[in-house]
């Protein structure tokens, strides 16, 4: 188990290893009473173990086996779900934290190996995928000193540069750019938008949605075909609980799969099977540089959930995995698979895996309605209450999911129109599309009774 305490004295704790690195590594056998068998890696049984996986004492690994184990989980997730196939261009979302640092490292290593194979191959038939990195700068929301922000961005640039060839484009984009349009003060508008929210949790969640919109914008404007997130098991476990608590049980299964294609640029989660503890350990072992999160800690519901999960994890180290496994048994949606899976580009093993697990994407049968704000699929019976809303209820309110209605939209209906004007374009566009969708299905029902008219379409 990766060690969180500063005074851990259990043998095999990686911190002990780090300290001893400066002193005498040879004394480790003596420290443990001379029983060198206890110190062997459980995998290769030859090298000394330096750290523990999530299984605690039963999963002591040497550095190489530990790293290979984690990389193996990443690689399997990528392959089985056809996340990255050439000629994809993938955009890695980088926050600076340990999970996204490991993600960046693993994607780089995969790219490096692919490149080597390409260079070594005679006919250069299989192109290599492209990689870009995106960092969404949220410093305008918090008032950090500009030195701190500049240093952090500088660190990020150097991290990406020091990965080595092949080179990767880095996008450092302020979050307010989501509003970018002529004559708009983006920072001011973002501030106004966030101030319009009372609920702390609503604010945090809206920021998450805006973050995704930013990533989507960067990806689509620069020709990327995938957005890669570093969401690890622990993050997903917290999301399972917080979505349950916010009444989002229906859409939960959409958010926690390996692949999420409801977005314009499909989003993939290759670190889904990696616990945060192990990712932290790897950063330590490999001295992977991390940039401290500029964003403040979560409060409200999200903060409460994350401390709850932490308590559970301390009581039982496999709790996060159990939570994700349980939620994994919920039925996913048709968009939880890569759309072009029947392509011959996709390895046949992957196609077999998909058939076996019923992950066939069926975008043509899409009859899902989505919340314009959080993009979560709406349960049919919820949306059937749409027709009963009074005329003064705004279209956005009617189209939104019940969670966004409560925590994001203003309580006072008269303020909704003003709120809508502050939202970024993609959300407003979704609301209009949603509304059109509802109107057109109603129109179908009454089609026979409509007299021909020169009135404009809705």
């Amino acid at each position, binding site marked *: 188990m990766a060690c969180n305490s500063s005074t851990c004295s259990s043998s095999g704790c990686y911190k002990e290893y780090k300290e001893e690195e400066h002193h005498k590594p040879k004394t480790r056998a003596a420290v443990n009473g001379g029983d060198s068998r206890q110190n062997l890696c459980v995998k290769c049984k030859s090298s000394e173990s330096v750290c523990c996986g999530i299984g605690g004492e039963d999963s002591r690994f040497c550095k190489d086996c530990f790293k290979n184990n984690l990389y193996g989980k990443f690689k399997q997730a990528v392959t089985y779900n056809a996340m990255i196939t050439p000629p994809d261009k993938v955009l890695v979302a980088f926050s600076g934290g340990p999970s996204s640092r490991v993600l960046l490292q693993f994607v780089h290593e995969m790219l490096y190996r692919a490149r080597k194979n390409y260079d070594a191959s005679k006919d250069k038939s299989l192109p290599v995928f492209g990689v870009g990195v995106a960092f969404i700068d949220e410093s305008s929301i918090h008032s950090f000193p500009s030195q701190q922000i500049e240093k952090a961005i500088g660190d990020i640039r150097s991290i990406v540069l020091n990965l080595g060839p092949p080179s990767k484009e880095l996008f450092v984009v302020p979050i307010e750019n989501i509003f970018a349009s002529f004559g708009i003060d983006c920072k001011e508008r973002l501030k106004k938008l966030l101030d319009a929210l009372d609920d702390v949790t609503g604010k945090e969640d809206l920021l998450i949605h805006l973050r995704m919109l930013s990533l989507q914008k960067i990806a689509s404007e620069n020709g990327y075909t995938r957005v890669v997130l570093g969401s690890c098991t622990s993050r997903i476990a917290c999301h399972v609980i917080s979505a*349950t608590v916010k009444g989002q049980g229906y859409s939960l299964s959409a958010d926690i799969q390996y692949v999420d294609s409801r977005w314009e640029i499909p989003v993939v989660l290759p670190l889904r099977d990696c616990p945060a503890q192990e990712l932290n350990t790897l950063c330590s072992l490999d001295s992977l540089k991390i940039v401290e999160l500029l964003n403040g800690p979560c409060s409200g519901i999200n903060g409460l959930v994350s401390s709850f999960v932490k308590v*559970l994890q301390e009581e039982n180290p496999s709790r996060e995995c159990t939570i994700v496994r349980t939620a994994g*048994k919920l039925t996913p949606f048709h968009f939880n698979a890569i759309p072009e899976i029947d392509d011959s580009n996709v390895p046949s093993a992957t196609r077999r895996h998909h058939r076996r697990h019923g992950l066939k994407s069926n975008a043509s049968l899409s009859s899902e309605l989505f919340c314009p704000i959080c993009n979560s699929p709406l349960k049919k019976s919820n949306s059937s209450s749409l027709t009963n809303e009074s005329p003064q209820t705004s279209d956005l309110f009617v189209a939104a999911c019940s969670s966004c209605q409560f925590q994001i939209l203003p309580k006072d209906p008269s303020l909704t129109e003003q709120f809508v004007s502050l939202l970024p374009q993609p959300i407003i566009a979704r609301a209009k599309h949603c509304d059109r969708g509802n109107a057109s299905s109603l129109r179908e029902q009454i089609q026979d009774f409509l007299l021909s008219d020169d009135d404009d379409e809705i």
Partner: protein
Amino acid sequence: MEADTKPKKPGARLCCVCNQRRAALKRPKTLEQICRECFYAVFEEEIHQVILENKLFKPGERIAIGASGGKDSTVLAYVLSEMNRRHNYGLDLFLLSIDEGITGYRDDSLETVKRNELQYGLPLKIVSYKDLYGWTMDEIVKMIGLKNNCTFCGVFRRQALDRGAALLKVDKVATGHNADDIAETVLLNILRGDIARLSRCTSIITGEDGPIPRCKPFKYTYEKEISSISLGCKNLNKFSTYAYFRKLDYFSTECIYSPNAYRGFAREFIKDLERIRPRAIHDIIKSGEDFRIATSTKMPEQGTCERCGYISSQKWCKACVLLEGLNRGLPKLGIGRNQGLNKDAKKDIKKDGRTKSIESKQCGSLDF
């Protein structure tokens, strides 16, 4: 319930429903300011609506109310008998109480139920673990310690309720499970990985295809509201001869064996949640109802226990497995995953298509 000490001022803190009386509390569920009388009225009306909308009862049915003496079952008994009278449900109501044999806890709470019997005029039946199983919880805890005792008690109580209900010849059992309980159960099932239970635990009626269906009229009722009712409610039962009781009589101590229960984690969390966002309890239940769970995972195969005939998805029902463990001095039998008699019984079935008798196995060759 908040005590309002301000003197009555014109326009200040009036009940949002009647707009006449002074608001005495903020409704835990909605945070609306409401006076006492309107709160009782709203509370009772909501229960009435839940009963109607979910078709919980039919006229002429005999209903056993699972009565522990705690506030949930006391308020349930009170409200059901009141609604039965006021709205003419036409039900025959009984109190059914289980004596687990916990000294210093259950013996006291049973006294409360006996008083409820007199207060509400509802016939009471008490079923004890000692009579049914030959063990009291005190004896069980002495043998197995404090780690898994809640498992034993819960399993035994479920069967005891059914047996008591059968003795009373009732059509349904109503229990006082409230919204907080159900929210806790949803969370626990996620934490434990029990997807099958997760799909069933939010149903307001369960066991419809079994011997005695059960319903939970308080499914949408917040625990805090039940507490508010029981604390402040004058005893309005006209038939009671104990009219000087101003409050609903209930027993309010936690089970003495409970400190190590895992459910406590979830309960603390939900309490914290409720403080930030009261509707979260309702939202958890809604999530539980909305989870996309394939219908194929919902129903385990239903059979009967070979030993006692009770409903069971395995060869032996859980109560029999646990009892066997107790009687043989094997406290871990039936505890944890893949343990106990049933696993080996199933393996035998798989191997040669016949069921081997458990008794033929040497003691000690059963792994657990």
